[in-house]
């Protein structure tokens, strides 16, 4: 599935670009991201907890930045393996342009799932992927603009019961029911 969107961010293009390349910013903006480590200039490893319909899983995988045109655009892509839940893959081409009042960030994202996620969650995947993409850029906008309270709110929304310790989440009853 493919998704597009844009955000007008009240910050300079340079500020937005810097944030787009900051692992701490990315970590706080990727919904459900528990860990993120930079392994090279353009690569990160990440652990993300996501819940799609009845399937909740911890995805471990890699995030990569490519097609980098400094200050203008890049593609951020990731692939995560969720064990018995299957896999998720996605990417977004992000483009920045100067605009009155700040920087216009446009994105064209696509996502793909496999395994149990596709089998049980397919009806929900389109809506889910749109929500994840929108959440990411909402948070990003909030972080860059310094509206942290909203980012935290979005994080709480996305995690949905995310205050349980990770191990308990993994062994949640729902996952046992559907796995």
């Amino acid at each position, binding site marked *: 599935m493919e998704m597009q969107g844009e955000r007008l961010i009240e910050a300079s293009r340079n500020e937005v670009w810097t944030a787009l390349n900051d692992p701490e910013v990315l970590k706080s903006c990727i919904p459900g991201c528990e860990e993120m480590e930079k392994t090279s200039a353009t690569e990160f490893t990440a652990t993300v907890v996501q819940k799609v319909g009845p399937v909740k899983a911890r995805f471990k995988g890699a995030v990569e930045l490519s097609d980098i045109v400094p200050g203008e655009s890049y593609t951020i892509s990731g692939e995560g393996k969720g064990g018995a839940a299957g896999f998720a893959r996605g990417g977004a081409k992000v483009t920045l342009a100067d605009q009155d009042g700040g920087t216009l960030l446009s994105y064209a994202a696509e996502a793909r799932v*496999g395994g149990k996620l*596709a*089998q049980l969650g397919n*009806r929900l995947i389109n809506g889910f992927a749109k929500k994840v993409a929108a959440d990411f850029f909402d948070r990003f906008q909030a972080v860059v603009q310094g509206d942290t309270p909203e980012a935290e709110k979005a994080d709480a929304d996305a995690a949905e019961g995310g205050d349980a310790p990770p191990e308990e989440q993994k062994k949640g009853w729902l996952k046992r029911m559907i796995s």
Partner: protein
Amino acid sequence: MPKDQGIGASSKRREDVRFLTGKGQYTDDINRPGQTYAYFLRSNVAHGKINGIDTSAAASAPGVVGIFTAKDLEAAGGVPCGWQVTDKHGEPMKEPKHPILAEGKVCHVGDPIAAVIAESLNQARDAAELIDLDIEELPPVIDMRAAISGGPTVHDEAPDNICFDWDFIADNKEAVDQAIAGAHHVTTLTLTNNRLVANAVEPRCAIGEYDAARDEHTLYTTSQNPHVIRLLMGAFVLSIPEHKLRVVAPDVGGGFGSKIYHYAEEAFVTWAAKAVGRPIKWTADRSESFMSDAQGRDHQTKVELALDENGKFLALRCETLANMGAYLSTFAPCVPTYLHGTLLSGNYTTPVIHTNVKAVFTNTVPVDAYRGAGRPEATFQLERTIDKAAREMGIDPVELRKRNFIAPDAFPYQTPVAVQYDTGNYGATMDKAVAMADLDSYAARKTASEAKGKRRGLGIASYIEACGIAPSSLVGALGARAGLYEAATVRVNPTGNVAVMTGSHSHGQGHETTFAQVVAEMLGCDEANVDIVHGDTAKIPFGMGTYGSRSIAVGGSAIVRSVEKIIEKGKKIAAHLMEAAEADVTFADGQFSVAGTDKSVDWGTVALTAYVPHNFPHETLEPGLEETSFYDPANFTYPAGAYICEVEVDADTGKVDIASFVAADDFGNVINPMIVEGQVHGGLTQGLGQALLENCVYDENGQLVSASLMDYAMPRADDMPSFGVDHSCQTPCTHNPLGVKGCGEAGAIGSPPALVNAVVDALSDLGVTHIDMPVSPGRVWAAIQAAQN
């Protein structure tokens, strides 16, 4: 006055006592001492190269007993296919290896890659999550047309993804082409027979056990044919001789074809039980069933029917793409060929017929026989096309069929597609269905529907099927790698009660009741004195199993033959007891009598004497009263009938409601009318489920997206009308001793075209000429919009 027992009585199903009180003994109910649990790590991708499998972390996980991959199974064979089709060039079909665990590549979502055995199922699952798979994803091929048009290759052995390209009957091709070219009218229809998932209520399960002291293997499994599994697995996969391998298929909760086949999981638990030295249980969960049970149907067909100005059928040409999935399942090649091409004459006198079938490999779950198997596909093609022809030519659909029916005095009737129908009366079942459906008042019902804002449609369909599978010489010539006879042993115990060991497995059909009725009728005894034993290779002499509506026609006939031998033996014993000539002894109502005298001995005396003889002439009369028969049918049986469906369609939403459905079937003689009616109800519901609701869907990446009962719509009671069922039109089979034809699949064969014909009828004035199954609201609505634009 209906009989209260024996042939023709609606005896209550004795097996229901245990099924309805929770006392059934299914495979998963069995637990063996020291049992472990297997979990299969399956492919998440439809097509990929396995670059590495790292099981080291998983191996040290809590509770793990063993982890196995393909390299551990190098000595084992692949899962074999039971049929070979020879293509139009005289070449055998392409038969790529179907390994127990994936060897170097994965070919569909659900392909098993590794198996983890642990003390508990949850430990096995948790350990499987620690297996590090390095799979390089390859582009998959899902669509059959893409597969044969240069799409990615599933198996190197079949670079064009064609398993076989089959012409039937090749010699008819020219005549068919000429007839179509010169015909007054040709009706053409392109259609899809949707892919289905059987979804038996009991998922598959297998327990492997090995007794090292005796070097004996036991497999408990959810199978429709335990002897076939023993033969295929023992001889071709694991090299275990029969005397060291017992296969038990206890109570089985529905099969519908999907439990005929030999599956990798059965072979694995049998093999691994020896490797780990403990029993191993594997039970599929529902999601796993969706991606590991063989699926059904999935044909794409173009049909051309040539007619003269009076509507007489002149020729039929069909071209089909049949999806095999990623590997050849046990029966897969025969479904689109010998169970499909041979039925294209239907109930009609079409003089020349030609079909081409291309069997196609795709990166999807293997496809095999599903209730009806090939015959529903043939019937749907024919009956949809005839319906379209009737509309195009302005001939009533009942009348058009009647003009082309094989006349009742034309039997035996040799069709142009290899089979010879022994008996039938298709006009009689059609007349019966028309009367049951009360077509005289259809116009009033249509008006009443319109008053409610609904469109009413009327759908007619006839069907014929080839059942009683199968005459061994014929199917051998057609490529079956085994004969399809059936075996039965009848053992009379010393006090006169009877045990029948039959190779026909019962998994919902009610054999334990029906077969006892046959034996009781022949022996003049109470049904309660007859016990039916099935499902265990240690107890049964042999068995080819239950499928293709064969149990009563073939398995029942084997029982009849054995009972006949028992009666002959009983006559010898009675003659000895009465000091009479054997030729003078008659048997009736449980008494052996000497003709023309008042001398007689009863059944119990003969049975007891058989086991406690004191002065038998041992040269000519052995003790004991037990006989075995192997019955090989001379021909298929040909159940046939006519079905009429009325629907109401809401044109605003596309929702179809089945207003009424009547079925007039000719099953030949009927043993238990109540059980037959139940079989028809089940068949109709499965057929109507296919037509209205069910659809197995893969996305373009080969992900199975209809893999739960939330996404795959099974029919429910409130989707179905109250069926009108009749089986009073009876033309008994001429070549089996019971005159029976079989009833298990009929409903699933005849009902889909009846329903779709009705929906198209309701919408025909809007310009709708065809809707592919399932006729879901979205498809119906879209068809209406497309026709109007």
